[in-house]
């Protein structure tokens, strides 16, 4: 990304284009190039890698006719780059192929499952932000003393533990033994399909419809998986916040602030933290993106009907189209979020403006 930026910057300056335009077009170029890369890889995985891509789709018990049909459908008689361009064309039209499992277009399936993952990842990230950031600041301000050690240990366990195992233990303790939360899935079966899926995000939809019982039930189901996923986010964010804060607290302008006679809490939050905020944007973006992926395992454990579960189930059913379709969607989101947070960082930091 840096290479493209500098190349474009050079080109832009020779053409005397305004720097903002150059930067935005650099961003778009990055997005396009990475999308091409991603699709090239999924194409390779789907067509080139399996010994027989047709078998991967029809299974090894299909008749010769079906085999030949699919062979032609896939355009396997044509040279590879032609196949790739056809594939790319299909993708850009939103055609992700048809799922073998559900016989529906993969794109439709994914659209149905995506909001659940979005809900989970968003709540988990919020948890990571509102718990992780204060933890990181606390640790940095008290470096070497017990709050620092506690935060570092929690953080360390948070990203050393296998998330699916952590989820399992949490279910054991909080659901089976303590009965504090609801069980697997997003809602008790009893409440299924009552609320109109306006946004697909259950808690929002339930609140909008005024169905408070359903709202509470949804939250009871959401809280444990979001906490588990959030633990990972929290661990990472706390650690990075601590690192950034330590860096800032050793800078000269902090001494200046203290010399002015400002109360210490203001020095920490209004001065040091403000400088950290910019860097945290990138971190939060990275975290959100990785949670989209981390949800795969969490959803499996909690039977949360999101994209992760979809990909996993498709995997077990050898539904290559679905798996690759899901991979592309998650991949694009992942890349998109990262690039977006990159852009946001450049917009917010006054030094870069």
């Amino acid at each position, binding site marked *: 990304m840096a290479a493209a930026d500098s190349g474009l910057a050079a080109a832009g300056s020779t053409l005397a284009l305004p720097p903002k335009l150059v930067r935005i077009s650099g961003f778009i170029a990055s997005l396009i190039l990475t999308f091409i890369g991603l699709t090239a890889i999924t194409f390779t995985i789907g067509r080139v890698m399996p010994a027989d891509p047709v078998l991967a789709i029809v299974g090894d018990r299909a008749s010769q006719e079906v085999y030949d049909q699919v062979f032609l459908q896939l355009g396997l008689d044509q040279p590879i780059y032609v196949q790739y361009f056809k594939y790319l064309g299909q993708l850009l039209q939103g055609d992700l192929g048809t799922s073998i499992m559900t016989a529906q277009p993969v794109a439709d399936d994914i659209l149905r499952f995506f909001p659940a993952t979005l809900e989970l990842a968003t709540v988990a990230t919020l948890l990571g932000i509102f718990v992780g950031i204060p933890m990181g600041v606390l640790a940095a301000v008290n470096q070497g003393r017990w709050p620092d050690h506690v935060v570092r240990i929690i953080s360390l366990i948070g990203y050393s533990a296998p998330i699916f195992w952590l989820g399992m233990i949490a279910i054991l303790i909080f659901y089976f033994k303590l009965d504090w939360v609801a069980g697997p899935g997003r809602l008790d079966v009893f409440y299924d399909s009552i609320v109109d899926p306006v946004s697909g995000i259950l808690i929002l939809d339930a609140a909008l419809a005024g169905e408070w019982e359903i709202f509470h039930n949804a939250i009871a189901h959401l809280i444990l998986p979001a906490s588990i996923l959030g633990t990972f986010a929290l661990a990472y964010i706390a650690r990075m916040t601590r690192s950034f804060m330590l860096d800032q607290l050793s800078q000269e*302008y902090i001494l200046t602030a*203290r*010399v*002015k*006679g400002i109360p210490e809490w203001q020095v920490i939050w209004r001065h040091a933290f403000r400088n950290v905020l910019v860097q945290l944007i990138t971190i939060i973006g990275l975290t959100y993106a990785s949670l989209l992926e981390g949800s795969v395992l969490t959803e499996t454990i909690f039977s949360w009907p999101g994209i992760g579960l979809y990909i996993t189930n498709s995997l077990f059913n050898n539904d290559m189209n679905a798996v690759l379709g899901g991979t592309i969607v998650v991949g694009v989101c992942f890349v998109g979020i990262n690039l977006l947070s990159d852009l946001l960082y450049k917009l917010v930091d006054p*030094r870069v403006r």
Partner: protein
Amino acid sequence: MSSIRRVVANVVDSPLLSVEDLHVTYHTPTGPVLAVKGVSFELGREKLGIVGESGSGKSQTGRAILGLTAPGGEVRARRLEFQDTDLLRADKRTMRRIRGGGISMIMQDPKYSLNPVMTVGKQIEEAFLVHSNDSKPEARRRTLEMLRAVQIREPERVYRAYPHEVSGGMGQRIMIAMMMIPEPSIIIADEPTSALDVTVQLQVLAVLDDMISERGMGLIFISHDLNLIASFCDRILIMYGGQVMEECRADELAQAKHPYTRGLLNCLPRLDGGQDGSQDELAVLRRDPAWLETHEKMS
């Protein structure tokens, strides 16, 4: 402080700051490091220069006065008083009031000593609002006034600017404005011109000088530049290895007695090569380890 009190204080002439036997010790894993070893001096409404090389303890002295020694450092003194307040035993609130409102400090490089994500105006306003109960509009008015006082020609534009958008000289003047606006009695300037070009240095020093004389303040000017201090200050303290080697009046520097001071003077290149042609080769300072042992300073 109101101008009447200032006049009265000028007349009464008790020292603003009294430092007696100041020690700053850092406890490191490899043993204690004695950064300041028994420094004593008094400061009135005058310009006191502290000269020394890196590691002589001059900056540490300044920080110790403000109670801003880095963590791991221990400050001890027989007396450390500012205008009747015991700085050693003062509680946190008192110290916060004194910092900025009583004693202020200007640092070396505005590139690093100003908050990069806050506008200049806000930073100066903050310094003002911490020590007064005035309103925000009043703070803004005072800030602009202050920016004008430090010879900044477009105060409105600079008010809205970020630190990285101003030059070094302007940054230091902004620093001065920021540190003067709460009307302290003493200002400590820690290498204020070391990061600036020579021409800009003179400008900044002129601004500093004006403000100090106008307000009748005390100045502690810390530097490694003997010439600069000799021309700018009234009295000079020469530090080496954490101790004061010699204390003298600026106009009597040439008659300094301590070998270290004489050594420093000899190392300064002179355009006339010494009136007796004695300076054919530029001398190199030879350090006598005996200077590092605790002793009484020469004055």
